[in-house]
Structure formats: C-alpha cells, structure tokens
C-alpha cells in the first residue's frame, strides 16, 4: 500500500531541503529542454543538404605571380590536365565555394527597373562542367553549352544571357509555381536580362547563416585573373588519394603560379558549422553538468535525510516494514519532490521558450520534447535516490532500540 499521503504531509513539515531540490529540478528541466531545443535547431540547420557531392569534392586555389601570363590558355590547360588524371570525374573553375563563408551575391528581379523588388541570390560562375563537377541535380531545362561560356575580366560588370537557378530561387521568384521559372527572363543589375535555362534541385550559398541559403544561381562565366579556384570531383572514395596528386600535377605543370589551399568540401562544411558544433557541445555539457548536479543534490539530500532518520527507519522496520517498503518510501518521497520540480520546471521551460522564440525567431518548443525532459528528470531522480534508498533499507530494525 502506498504512503503518498503521509509522505507528502511529512515533507510539508520539513520542506526547505525538498523545495530547494525541487527548484533545482525545475531549473534543470527548463534549461535542459530549451538547450536540447536549441541543439535540435542547430542540428537541423547543419543537416540541410548542400546539394553537392560533398564526399568526393575538393578544391584548391591557383595564384599566378608571373607577368604577361596567358590566363585563358593556362586555365584551359589546367582543367584539361586535372580531368585527365585517373580517378578525377570532372573539374571546373568556380568563383566561390559553397558553405565557405565567402562568395558573390546579386539580386534578381522579374521586372527591369531600379525601383523593382529583387530577390537575393548567391552567384556561382562555372563552365559547362559545373553541374557535373558539383554533383548537383538538374531537374528542369538544360546545362550550359561550351558556346555559352564567356570570359569575365576582373573589372567586368556585364552578365551573360543565360542562367541556371536553384529550385528555392525559382520558388522565391515564382511562389507556388517554381516550375514556371524555366524559360522566364529575369533581370540582374536592375536592367540586364537573363533567361532561366535550367533549374537545379539544391545548391547552397556560401553563407550558412543566410536565410536564403538555398537560393543560388549558376552563370556561364570563366574568370580571367591572377587568382582562381578549381573545384574537382573524384570517383567515390578516391578524394583523399587524389588531393595531393592533383596539387602536385598542377604545381609541376607550370612554375609561374602557386597552388595552395587544397581542401575537401567536407572540411569546409565542418569549418562552416564549427561554431554551431561547438555551441551544441557546450549546451550538451551544460545539460550533463546540470543533470549531474541535480542528481548529486538528490543523493545528498536523501543521504542527509536518511542519516537524520536512522532511528525512524529502524522503527518502521520494527513495526513491520520490509526492506522493499523502506526503499519504496524514499523513492516515493523523491517522486513527490521531482513532481513539484517538474511542475515548476514545465512552466519555466515554456516561459523561457517563449522568450527564446521572440528573441531569436525560433520555432516553438514541441510538447514531445518537454515530455521527454520530464520523463528524463523523473528517471534521473529515481536513479539518484536508488542508492540512498538501498542504504536506508539496509538499516537494521534493531536500530529502533539502540542508541544511534
């Protein structure tokens, strides 16, 4: 038979310790739930697909220091050389690296004119090998032809006539009917027309914190200048093996430039989300530490209470309590304290979440997460009190008649 009533009444008469532990449980619950909520939000951001064949991509920088350098010819030679290396699937020159944090952005508008609304978009300049090299999926229209590719000088301000945009960009330009974007003319630099000749499923921008990170466009440009980047796609599983080979081949083929910054796209992703990962780890640490402190607090209170009540426990045993009934007493007592903590904690967690949502534009807390936190704290409470409860149960009934 449970003793909830007497346990509750007894707690009311010695409430300071119990209330302090309950408040600690409440604090832990509110912070734990919201920390997990923030971790989930960050994990969701980090899990967004870039649209690229990340596992098999790497890139490098090519910096020319020679004067009167034949940039156009050298670029074509480099790309031919890279593509000829066994294990390389394709390569392209590219102006910006997805997720790297640095890149170009422009604005596309459906109508020409300076006063028209535009939609921000990340710009990737690639040749006809761009789509295959990046591993992005062309879901409508067609790829660039070799004849579409134009050279762009460092000082140029004009734009080619064609573009391939991401589905998210198409949706932003033509809400609810992204398919209709194909063949449409949009305007860049207010008045320069570009025809959308293809739509790719996903291609993330270089900036992971941008709310338009899925909006991107490919333009058929090759850059003419001292600095350029090559993106290289390898056969599956051969990226790490080919990174030094390609670097060496390029370095040896032309001594008038420096090859540097050889890096896999996976590394770029890891770098890009390093702060997110670090924050998630810190939050996890906070949860673990808080939970441990709470558990130790419960153990401490229970042990103190048991030491104080040794004779009382002995008396209960003398009056017929089995060891199991003594254990159950302390576990029920903890259940009541935890319930009070959980009650306050749920209210605090919701309050904190409302504040977080209003401050950081996050989605509201899911009830399932709150429920999980509640269950977790009940488990922590019961596990923490298990050892003290066993200690209490081991108190001999003869303690009732002896000096303690």
């Amino acid at each position, binding site marked *: *038979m449970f003793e909830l009533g007497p346990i509750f*009444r007894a707690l009311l008469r010695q409430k300071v310790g119990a209330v302090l532990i309950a408040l600690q449980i409440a604090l832990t619950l509110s912070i734990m739930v919201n920390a997990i909520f923030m971790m989930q939000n960050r994990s969701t951001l980090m899990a967004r697909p870039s649209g690229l064949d990340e596992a098999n991509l790497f890139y490098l920088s090519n910096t020319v220091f020679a004067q009167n350098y034949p940039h156009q010819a050298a670029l074509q030679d480099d790309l031919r050389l890279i593509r000829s290396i066994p294990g390389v699937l394709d390569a392209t020159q590219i102006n910006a690296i997805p997720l790297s944090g640095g890149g170009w952005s422009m604005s596309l508008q459906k109508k020409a004119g300076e006063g028209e609304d535009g939609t921000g978009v990340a710009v990737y300049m690639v040749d006809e090998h761009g789509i295959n090299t990046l591993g992005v999926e062309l879901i409508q229209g067609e790829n660039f032809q070799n004849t579409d590719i134009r050279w762009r000088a460092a000082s140029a301000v004009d734009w080619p006539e064609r573009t391939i945009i991401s589905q998210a960009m198409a949706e932003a330009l033509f809400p609810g009917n992204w398919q209709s974007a194909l063949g449409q003319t949009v305007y860049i630099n207010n008045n320069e027309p570009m025809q959308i000749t293809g739509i790719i499923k996903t291609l993330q921008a270089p900036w992971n914190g941008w709310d338009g990170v899925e909006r991107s466009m490919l333009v058929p440009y090759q850059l003419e200048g001292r600095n350029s980047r090559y993106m290289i796609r390898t056969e599956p599983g051969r990226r790490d093996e080919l990174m030094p080979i390609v670097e060496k081949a390029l370095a040896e083929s032309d001594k008038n430039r420096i090859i540097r910054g050889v890096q896999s796209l996976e590394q770029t992703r890891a770098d890009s989300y390093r702060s997110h990962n670090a924050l998630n780890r810190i939050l996890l640490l906070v949860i673990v530490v808080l939970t441990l402190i709470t558990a130790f607090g419960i153990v401490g209170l229970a042990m103190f209470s048991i030491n104080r009540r040794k004779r009382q426990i002995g008396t209960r045993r003398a009056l017929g309590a*089995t060891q199991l009934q003594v254990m159950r007493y302390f576990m029920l007592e903890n259940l009541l304290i935890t319930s009070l903590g959980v009650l306050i904690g749920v209210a605090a967690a919701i309050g904190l979440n409302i504040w977080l949502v209003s401050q950081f534009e996050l989605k509201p807390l899911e009830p399932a997460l709150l429920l999980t936190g509640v269950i977790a704290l009940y488990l922590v409470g019961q596990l923490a009190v298990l050892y003290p409860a066993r200690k209490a149960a081991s108190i001999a009934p*003869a303690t009732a008649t002896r000096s303690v």
Partner: protein
Amino acid sequence: MLKMKQLGKVFHTGEVSTHALREVDLQVNEGDFVSVTGPSGSGKTTFLNIAGLLEVATSGEFLLDGDNVNLLSDSKRSKMRNQKIGFIFQGFNLIPELNLFDNVDVPLRYRGFDAKERKRRIEQQLELVGLASRMKHLPSQLSGGQQQRVAIARALATSPRFLLADEPTGNLDSQMAQSVMALLEDINRQGTTIIMVTHDHGLAQRAKRQIFIKDGRVSELTAVEGLHSAGLERVTPLHAHTVTDAARQLGV
C-alpha cells in the same frame, strides 16, 4: 507461544567476540506478563530484540507459534513482526513529522489494511489511550506520558499477540510511569502477552513473571505475587526454573 532453546547471541567486533546472550531456555505462554530486569549491558535489549525478531540469534532455536524464526527470510520476519508483535520503545520512537493519526497508521499500512479499516483501528486505539481528540496533533505537542500512550496505541493497532516493551516508563516521571503501567496491565488482562524490559524493580514486580539477565544468562525469579513480600528483590539471581525452586531457596 514463544519458546527459546539454548539460544545464544554473539557480537563480533574485529577480533573481539561479545557473548550478549548465553544458552537461554525460556518459554512465554499466551497471556503472560513477563518483566525483564538486569544491570546495564547485561543483554536485556538483545534479549528483547531477538524476542521481537529485530535481531537473529547466532545459536540455538527460537520458535514463535511453532515457526523457527532463525530460518525465516528478512521479509518474512518483517511480516511476522507486523502481524504478531507490537513494540513500545523507551524513547517512544514516534515519527516527529507525522501527526498522531499518521503515526498509529504506520504499521497498519504495512499490514495492508484498507483506508476504512485503518481509520477504524486508529480511532479505536487512540480512544483507548485517551487521545482521540488530539489525533491531528504532532508528537511534539504532547507530554512524554501522552507520547508513550500514542506509542502504545500504535503497538496495539495491529492487534498483536505479543507486546514487547523496552523500558516503557524509562523517560517518564513516576506518576506517568504508574499510569502507563496500569494501561499495560489492562492490556495484558485482555489477553495480550507482554514482555517488558525495565530497570524499575517496583514495576517489574507487578508482572506475572520476572526474568533477570546478567552476563547474558537468563534466570527466572518468581511467578507469584506472594514472593514479593518475601524479599525476592534482595536475592542473588538464581537459576530457578520453577516457582517451587525459587520458594525453596527463599525458605518460603
């Protein structure tokens, strides 16, 4: 019926062994009122603890209603304690955070009675000890004598066949001690077997049987009131197992 045969209890502390009880042979029958006296450290409390199933003997046999309790598990001993034995402690051992009602309720919950039956028994017992009107009071709001009465009510609530009292008047003034003793005698008259450890020879002599313990050995002094006046209390404890033996030694 409670029967001890060659019962012994040895406590081991490091390499030191202390014989708390030695070769105890004793039978307590239904309706007995047995007082247990002896000097401090003689083994009285150990005797009471073993009789009350709070401790287990290290040798010999202890039968309670025919069951050899040395062979029972801790859980079964707990249940047997709850069903057959009531305890009264020198320090009352009431639970300070619980009111009188909840204190008396403690053994009843362990017995598994339903709420209605528990309430009936609690009210009945508190009525018996004259504290029914104070059942919502805390022990700290009562005098020592009243607290001991609550302890008696708690001990009797489960209708035990044996009532074990460890210095029940030890913390009371003489007037309250007489009052508690009178209550115990009344309870005994109603059929409950009582074993009472006491330092008070006057109270011990009011029991039907007197046990004396010294150095762990148990002696029974007398079972008849007529011997009190013959100066039994001045007699060196004897290994007198019958009233006749005791009377013969006293020359009565």
